[in-house]
């Protein structure tokens, strides 16, 4: 008897009452097609994105670039200037809901970090925390029940996987343009420090409807176990397809339980870049082509068959529940090519007692190995934070001031407290002045406030200054070659709803081909099915916004 089955079998909710309530619930979300037009015509072009005013209070050891290379600090700054001179709150309470990747921290009455945060914010922060795995469902019921907190994080994704998001924003949330457009954002300097590239994803219905949670332009890293590469005597920079395959073979030894890759999407990502696939969509004169429809994709699939036959992939590569991070830590696989760039911190931490472990990043060359392959840039956002419609404009400003505090840049006094809490209680400083969380800090500081507002990503690895240089160099090499996904910042309802199952079906089918269970000719049928189920509609929705110049200003 599963818990879900238990909740479903309810007796007292009679059939008629249920039907009535269902009608009410749905009427809350489905607000005719009229307002859909307000998002898809040129109105969004009228939105003026916030002026980008980078924070200058601290000088990074290695500066970021306009293209999107993240600034890097070798050590935590010893001086921590304050970026918000005045207490943002005015007493009362501000509520928020966000996802959490950790075990929930103790409540405010037993959590000194939370108490200190409330004091600094000048408000009582009421947080609903939801495990990331359940966030989407909680989000849907919260919206349907109209029990909205002041600050609400959309589920992770670009565009956020929320059906009818533009209409929802219009009816229930606040258009922040008046406060954030252009120079108006100067009142909130920490929000002005969020790059312009990122703000595009928060424009809907011709207005700015949220605070983006910024993420680095680089998106992914191709992690490798440098020590295993050295042991196998192969270069960590394989140039071209042939050398890449040879490298993978050299890293593989099934007798010793060693393979090059743990999951199918790892060689796929590298091969896709090698073959010059588009970054999801390719735009030519306002027309879009999806990766799946390209020659390059077919080539990648062909290469995948060769890789699978060569045995360089873990036998369980097609199991999505494969614990790929653990396999990488354990040295069972040497390449982890499709993982988020913040994974660096995690791998270093997981392996701090493993002396052999040496983390590296692999550049990708094009198929013939003559030059670097174009990098696929990330969407630049984790989610956006929407603000509930407020009756009192002063209260809206208060909420924005709270978010401004939470977005304090790396190294500032607010940032130090936000991530590491109080010195002596939540963290201690090591010899180089890097804050190290204590046990109390580890438990208490994990409030998901960083999903309500956050500063732009900054490269920093406590106690390993050389990592800052290494990552910065890798980003500086990759990002200038980068190509954008042309639909970032646009909203497609099909992408938010029907695409997930259609995409899964396509990928399952493609994996069947890789494993030789289906002939290669099956690919055409898979593409046709994907197009009819989601692809063509998605394309039409995006193209309309591109061609009318709607969507966020470019």
């Amino acid at each position, binding site marked *: 008897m599963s*818990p879900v089955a238990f909740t479903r079998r309810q007796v007292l909710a009679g059939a008629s009452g249920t039907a009535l309530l269902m009608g009410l619930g749905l009427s809350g979300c489905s607000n005719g097609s009229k307002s859909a037009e307000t998002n898809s015509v040129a109105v969004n072009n009228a939105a003026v994105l916030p002026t980008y005013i980078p924070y200058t209070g601290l000088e990074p050891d290695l500066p970021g670039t306009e293209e999107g290379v993240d600034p890097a600090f070798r050590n935590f700054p010893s001086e921590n200037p304050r970026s918000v001179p005045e207490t943002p709150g005015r007493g009362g309470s501000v509520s928020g809901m966000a996802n959490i990747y*950790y075990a*929930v*921290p103790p409540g405010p009455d037993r959590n000194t970090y939370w108490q200190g945060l409330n004091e600094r914010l000048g408000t009582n922060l009421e947080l*609903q925390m939801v495990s990331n795995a359940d966030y989407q469902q909680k989000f849907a019921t919260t919206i349907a029940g109209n029990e909205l907190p002041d600050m609400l994080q959309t589920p992770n994704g670009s565009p956020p996987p929320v059906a009818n998001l533009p209409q929802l924003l219009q009816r229930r949330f606040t258009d922040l343009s008046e406060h954030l457009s252009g120079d108006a954002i100067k009142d909130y300097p920490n929000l002005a420090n969020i790059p312009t590239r990122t703000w595009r994803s928060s424009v809907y219905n011709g207005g700015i409807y949220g605070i983006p949670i910024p993420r680095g332009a680089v998106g992914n890293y191709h992690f490798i176990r440098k020590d295993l590469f050295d042991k196998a005597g192969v270069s960590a920079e394989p140039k071209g397809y042939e050398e890449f395959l040879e490298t993978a073979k050299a890293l593989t030894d099934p007798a010793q339980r060693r393979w090059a890759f743990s999951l199918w999407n790892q060689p796929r990502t590298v091969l896709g870049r090698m073959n010059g696939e588009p970054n999801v969509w390719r735009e030519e004169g306002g027309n879009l082509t999806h990766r799946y429809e390209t020659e390059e994709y077919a080539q990648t699939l062909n290469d995948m068959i060769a890789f699978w036959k060569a045995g360089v992939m873990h036998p369980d590569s097609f199991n999505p529940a494969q614990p790929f991070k653990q396999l990488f830590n354990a040295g069972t696989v040497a390449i982890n090519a499709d993982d988020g760039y913040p994974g660096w911190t995690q791998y270093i931490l997981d392996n701090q007692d493993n002396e052999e472990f040496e983390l590296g990043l692999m550049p990708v060359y094009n198929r013939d190995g003559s030059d670097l392959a174009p990098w696929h840039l990330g969407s630049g956002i984790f989610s956006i934070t929407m603000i509930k419609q407020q009756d009192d404009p002063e209260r809206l400003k208060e909420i924005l001031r709270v978010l401004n505090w939470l977005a304090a840049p790396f190294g500032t006094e607010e940032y130090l407290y936000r991530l590491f809490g109080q010195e002596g209680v939540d963290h201690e400083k090591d010899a180089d002045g890097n804050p190290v969380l204590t046990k109390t800090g580890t*438990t208490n500081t994990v409030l998901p406030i960083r999903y309500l507002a*956050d500063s732009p990503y900054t490269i920093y690895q406590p106690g390993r200054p050389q990592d800052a240089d290494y990552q910065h160099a890798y980003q500086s090499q990759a990002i200038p070659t980068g190509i954008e996904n042309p639909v970032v910042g646009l909203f497609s309802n099909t992408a938010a709803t029907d695409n997930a199952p259609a995409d899964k079906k396509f990928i399952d089918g493609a994996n069947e081909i890789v494993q030789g269970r289906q002939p290669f000719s099956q690919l055409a049928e898979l593409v046709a099915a994907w197009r009819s189920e989601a692809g063509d509609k998605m394309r039409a929705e995006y193209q309309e916004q591109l061609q009318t110049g709607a969507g966020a200003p470019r």
Partner: protein
Amino acid sequence: MSTDQATIGDDTVRPEQANGRPVWMEKPSLLVQALKFIALAISVALVIIPFWSIIATSLASQETINAAAGGMVMWPGGIDLTAYQAVLSGGVVTRAMIISILITVVGTLLSLATTAGLAYWLSRSGSFGSKPMVILLLGAVLFSPGLIPNYLVVKELGLLDSYWSLILPVMINAFNVIVMRAFFQELPQELFESAAIDGASSATILVRIVLPLSKAVLAVIGLFYAVAYWNAFFNALLYIQTTDKWPMALVLRTFVVNQTTIGGDQLGPAEALPPQLSLQMAILVIAVVPILLVYPFLQRHFAKGVMIGAVKG
């Protein structure tokens, strides 16, 4: 012993071994015994080994797990309680455990009382309105109202962020009512009649006669309810907003990060997660132990109880 026929059934004429067993109960040969032992040992091992591995992994250090190629370990190689410390530190889990125990105990008692009452009403043929109610119940087994309607009902009743939202919406399980009703119907009706002649009311009959005769089914249904209350995280996820009020199942769930690819843009700067596998296994142990403690006391009734409804519905 006058006729041949009479001696056929007589033990004295059976061929018999020296040890007093009849031939078909002959002591098996050593080989057969060994084979039986092996077969049983394998079956037992198939059940025990996963449990053992879970416990061993929960006690293993990250190095041991790494050495086992990132998988489950069979031998922890030393006791490392880090995972348990990580789960139990901060007082969140202990508090949640108290909440869970209270919800489970209160909820199970309420569920049993209401289920038994409803089932008794429906089991007595000719009681007012029982036929339509049975049909309604069957409807509730077949059709579920769905997530959002449920949420709206709870919200309109003002139960959001209240412990009652974890009990009231799931207090009566239609399937359990039907099982219990079937059990009550099997009780000899003569008992009820004689009690009625002695002047017992319906309530007295239920409390003094029906329930004492129904310990098996009460134990089983009670266990069903208790396990469901104990494990339920989803309704708490939807209805409980204050994390301090979360039951244990939901708190433990936040320890288990979805193992599928954490995509490019997910974790923020300076975020890192504790070693996962041993933590997850420790959570499994903590979540399962209370039910394992209760189960032996109910096991006696269990085999009997689950047969109810199998032959008569």
